[in-house]
């Protein structure tokens, strides 16, 4: 009897150790990623590249040792902002509809639909972008503004990207709108407000920080998306001058040059620095947005 319980105790202790090790491994991963990317890119700083030059110079000539990330950073920022501008109103309206107005059967249709949209691999979005959005931009949208283009533009990338981040933002928005207690809606309605007044003045006001954070997470997601954007955005190294100009976002740069990076000195360090910029930006955006959402969920 004692032997048996001793066995159980040891089993329990051993298991606790294993669990702690597993969790520690998970938690330390971002720290290891940061440390290793930083170590790799610090070779760049050691050889006379100041942080300022790397971030704010637009001279990108790897063979001459010039690494100015400005065109890529600007491309990334523009394509991200544009895609969130396209996706935001759609997500916002659908989230309000699904949480406040929609019939049960409609919600039952929309949830799997957004799940499927979220599950489609980014390379398929890229193929779809090439087949549908590129011709749409080059044959319909650009001629409408009197511009000739191949269709591989900033706008194309942003449209494809916006479709990709819709399910992501939508899920978080729905989660946030559902945290607003139903009693508040009841109280509003009993005072004679219309449904829309309740939504506008009570629910949205209550959920405002969460809604902003949801879009923050969407920005972070869009900023890091790689393959689909790489396939449709054009990839020309210059600061884009308008919606119909080709652009070259940071993740595309990293993914496109993995083959050549070993042949040119410091090139791999430069690309690791690119990954570091992505990592730090996205980490901070996610952290702030998530903290706001957690606070909101606790307070309600």
């Amino acid at each position, binding site marked *: 009897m004692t032997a048996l319980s001793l066995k*159980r105790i040891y*089993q*329990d202790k051993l*298991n*606790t150790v*294993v*669990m702690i090790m*597993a*969790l520690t*491994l*998970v*938690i330390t*991963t*971002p720290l290891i*990623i940061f440390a*290793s*990317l930083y170590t790799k890119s610090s070779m760049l700083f050691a050889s006379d590249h100041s942080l300022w030059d790397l971030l704010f110079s637009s001279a990108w000539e790897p063979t001459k040792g010039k690494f100015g990330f400005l065109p890529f950073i600007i491309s990334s920022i523009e394509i991200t902002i544009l895609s969130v501008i396209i996706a935001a*109103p759609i997500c916002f*309206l*659908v989230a*309000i*509809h699904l949480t406040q107005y929609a019939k049960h059967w409609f919600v039952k249709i*929309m949830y799997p639909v*957004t*799940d*499927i949209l979220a*599950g*489609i*691999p980014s*390379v*398929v*979005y*890229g*193929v*779809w972008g090439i087949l549908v959005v590129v011709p749409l931009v080059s044959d319909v949208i650009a001629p409408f503004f009197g511009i000739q283009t191949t269709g591989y533009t900033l706008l194309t990338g942003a449209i494809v990207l916006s479709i990709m981040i*819709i399910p992501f933002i939508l899920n978080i928005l729905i989660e946030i709108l559902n945290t607003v207690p139903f009693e508040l809606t009841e109280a509003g309605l009993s005072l004679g407000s*219309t449904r*829309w007044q309740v939504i506008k003045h009570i629910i949205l006001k209550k959920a405002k920080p969460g809604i902003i954070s949801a879009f923050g*997470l969407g920005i972070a*997601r869009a900023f*890091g*998306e*790689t*393959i689909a954007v790489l*396939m449709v955005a054009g990839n020309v190294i210059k600061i884009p001058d308008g919606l119909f100009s080709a652009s070259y976002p940071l*993740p595309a740069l*990293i*993914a496109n040059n*993995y083959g050549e990076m070993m042949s040119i000195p410091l090139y791999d360090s430069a*690309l690791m620095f690119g*990954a570091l910029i*992505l*990592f730090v930006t*996205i*980490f901070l*955006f*996610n952290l702030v947005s*998530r*903290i706001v959402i*957690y606070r909101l969920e606790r307070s309600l």
Partner: protein
Amino acid sequence: MWGIKLIGKKTEELIFKQLMRLANAIILFVIGLIVFTIMRKGLPALSWEIISQVPKGGYYFGGEGGVLNAIVGSIYLAFGATFLAFVISLPSALFINVHLQKHKKLQDIIRLFIDVMWGIPSVVYGAFAFGIMIYMGIRASLMAGIVTVAIFIMPIMIRGMDEVLKMVPKTLFESGLSLGSTKYELSYRIFFKQCIPGIATAILLSFGRAFGDVAAVLFTAGFTDNIPTSLTQPAATLPLAIFFQLSSPIPEVQNRAYAAAAILTFIILAISVFGRMALRKYKKNSIN
């Protein structure tokens, strides 16, 4: 006066309701359009040859063969990565929910941290792993790809499991303790068993992610025309095969990229439907 204001509010509500309809319609239209486009372009190009053969000589210039190497490579990679991630994710998720039951603050911090990790794009994981591989002198291989993808899907899997483990009623935890269970028994015999359907869904979701990802394997798994026979060989993956073939100027090769995209979409949709069915079928055995 009040009447006019109310009418104004009513119109505003009506306008927004119409806009909501429009927004819903856009989403439904787009998903329909995506599946329709991929299937319409891909299905005519699809043939038994593409599914059952590896690329032969001159394949990338329109020669004979198929993408079997990439399909098998993706399956190996996704299974390997999902298994590896599972081995680490399950203990982690159980630890958060069983051992840290009393430490709400710590639970929150860990969940926050894992949520943040979830947001990190796969290209960063890929670049990181590539940096490590150069440093250690490892070449692109199936093993390197599996490890990278496993790290990348771990946060998704843990949070997926965590969401269902969180729902286990506290009374169940307490009755387990009152019967004299150790934390180990609570974890694996009560919490784990209670949440099997939800955990299966989390695993399938991560499997789908692993199957469809490009940016993490681009650097780490390499690409080859052969089916890998050991973990140290490079492996082709289906998304990467689509990407490469599509950048070819030859229409025949491009058509095969569309066919491969149709296969990939079909597999992902099947995983999604299967996950949903699994969840429904086993849900009736759990108490909540």
